[in-house]
């Protein structure tokens, strides 16, 4: 089942002589359970592509079909895009980006409350995720009081809270050492396999994407499909 289908996507900043063509004719298709890696040097357009897939940045041209629905068509508003993000997309960042004044438990609870899941049902889901990530013993800790690896696991748990169709990971291992980085990548693989969640990860580090289904190279805004792992 295709979760994300991008066709002919381009993004240009500015106009005339000052125009910067950040993305050029990108085509990408991601199915449920797929592990997709986007590689590329700085300035290649990785973040711009991620922002377009995150439904934060509207492309200049091309189409994005997410979970069967064409985005930015038929009067999509910012409210619709946010709803889609909170219900169907999970985010894992380069740094954990946990909300510092919420405990581990509350950080995972927050996205659940945003979609109206509260009370025992929410608490049960939080406990399930804490145990799945093996951080239940840190439940009432503030993020600042746990290690970087644990913070990243909380970040993954938060991304999984609403059972998203797609997880977008922006260099999730960049702030971790190799051992911890590999653990996080293993976790993403496990999630993709066990929950049939599509995972797209942006990374600099080719060592971290072992076992990924699709690997794309971005260079000067163009996606090189030749690096497909299959």
């Amino acid at each position: 089942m295709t979760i994300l289908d991008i066709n002919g996507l381009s993004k240009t900043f500015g106009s005339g002589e000052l125009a910067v063509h950040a993305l050029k004719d990108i085509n990408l298709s991601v199915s449920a359970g797929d592990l997709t890696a986007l590689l590329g040097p700085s300035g290649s357009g990785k973040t711009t592509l991620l922002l377009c897939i995150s439904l934060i940045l509207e492309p200049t041209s091309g189409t994005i079909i997410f979970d069967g629905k064409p985005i930015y068509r038929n009067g999509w508003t910012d409210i619709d895009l946010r709803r889609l993000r909170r219900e169907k997309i999970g985010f894992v960042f380069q740094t954990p980006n946990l909300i510092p004044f919420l405990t581990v438990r509350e950080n995972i609870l927050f996205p659940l409350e945003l979609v109206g899941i509260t009370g025992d049902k929410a608490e049960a889901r939080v406990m399930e995720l804490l145990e799945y990530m093996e951080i239940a013993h840190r439940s009432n800790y503030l993020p600042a009081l746990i290690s970087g690896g644990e913070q990243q696991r909380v970040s993954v748990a938060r991304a999984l809270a609403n059972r998203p169709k797609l997880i977008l990971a922006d260099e999730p291992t960049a702030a971790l050492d190799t051992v911890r980085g590999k653990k996080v990548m293993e976790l993403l693989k496990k999630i993709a396999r066990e929950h049939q969640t599509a995972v797209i990860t942006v990374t600099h580090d080719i060592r971290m994407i072992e076992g990924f289904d699709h690997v794309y190279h971005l260079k000067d805004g163009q996606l090189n499909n030749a690096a497909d792992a299959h």
Partner: protein
Amino acid sequence: MDLAIRDIAQHKGKFIATVIGVGLLFAVVLSMNGIYRGFIFEGLSAIQVTNPDLWVVERYRGGPFNEQSTVPEFFHYSIEALEGVEKASPFIFYGVERIINGNRKRFTIIGYDVFGGLGGPQNLTAGRQIQQAHYEMVAHEKLGFRLGDKIPLGLHTYTVVGLFKNGTAPDGEPLVYLSLPDAQEILYLRDNEEVRNQRERLQQTLTGPGRLTPSQAKKYVSLLVPDIHTVNAQLVKLTPGADSAAVARQIENRLYFSVYSNDQQINLMMQGRLAMPRKQLLLFRIILLIVSVVIISLVIYTFTMEKIRSIAVMKLIGAPNWVVVRLVLEQALLLTTCSYVFGLGVIYNTYQYFPRLVRLTLFDDTVTFLIALAGALIASSLGIWQALKTQPALALGGH
């Protein structure tokens, strides 16, 4: 989940320090309200405590409080003879400073007709009214006198026979009531050397060429003593049903005085002696309120900026705008309310130690709180605007 409360709970120390700082500022605002009210209350206190139907003062003068007024003492007989006047009595009023029992005391003496005249002390808290023509006084509690205390004033010693707590001069000094002759004696008491000098000057004037012989002049000098039978005003009580304006016109036209009702007397003070300080205090209150709002605005803005990355994350993971707006707004309202309550607590526990009256009123407290809340809403708009324009991309490190 209440994000604002969670954030504050994690930054208690910072929040409390801010509340104390802003709260002290509110305490200053509230104290200025009280000082303003107290200033007006004290400014009008003597008028309201005395409360005659009419004040008769020197012609073309706005006295006796707003400006100096001198009228002959015995004109109260002439005023009493007019239709519509039930009673008229003399009233004298002046400030003094004396060292009493080693302490420097400033107070204002009111002299009145103690035998049924108008303008005496009201609502005694201890003791009794003056019952003798001389050497008794009724004093404001603020002076620290006790019943039976002997207070030396001028040539004589006066016994405190009564105490009260309502009544101050326009400049806030406590009142002391004496019989009219005692008050006049203290007011006009002159130094012996000055008396001798004046007699010599008078004798020289009388013995000039073509005038009296020195022996004749000496006989007259002792008779020509300065007149101390002057007062500052005559107080009038009207007969029931009398037309106040008509009586005032009679006094003005026949006796050539100026006449004011109590309301007019209050108006004279408000437009005159109290006007400039009132404006000054009012302006100061407004500036203080503006400063408070600006400070709250900056605090809220700083609080918001410290959370800007968290706000970007919230927006990225799909939090609607109202979640972010609520976070900023709730913190602004909480900060304002807690600071205000702290300031209120400070001023209500300290206002009695101010040297002059600080008159706190529920009305002023409520209006200040509402203005502060409105200010907080305006102040938080800066933080809200900053939060709303935060791009979710910030969480990804882009844009």
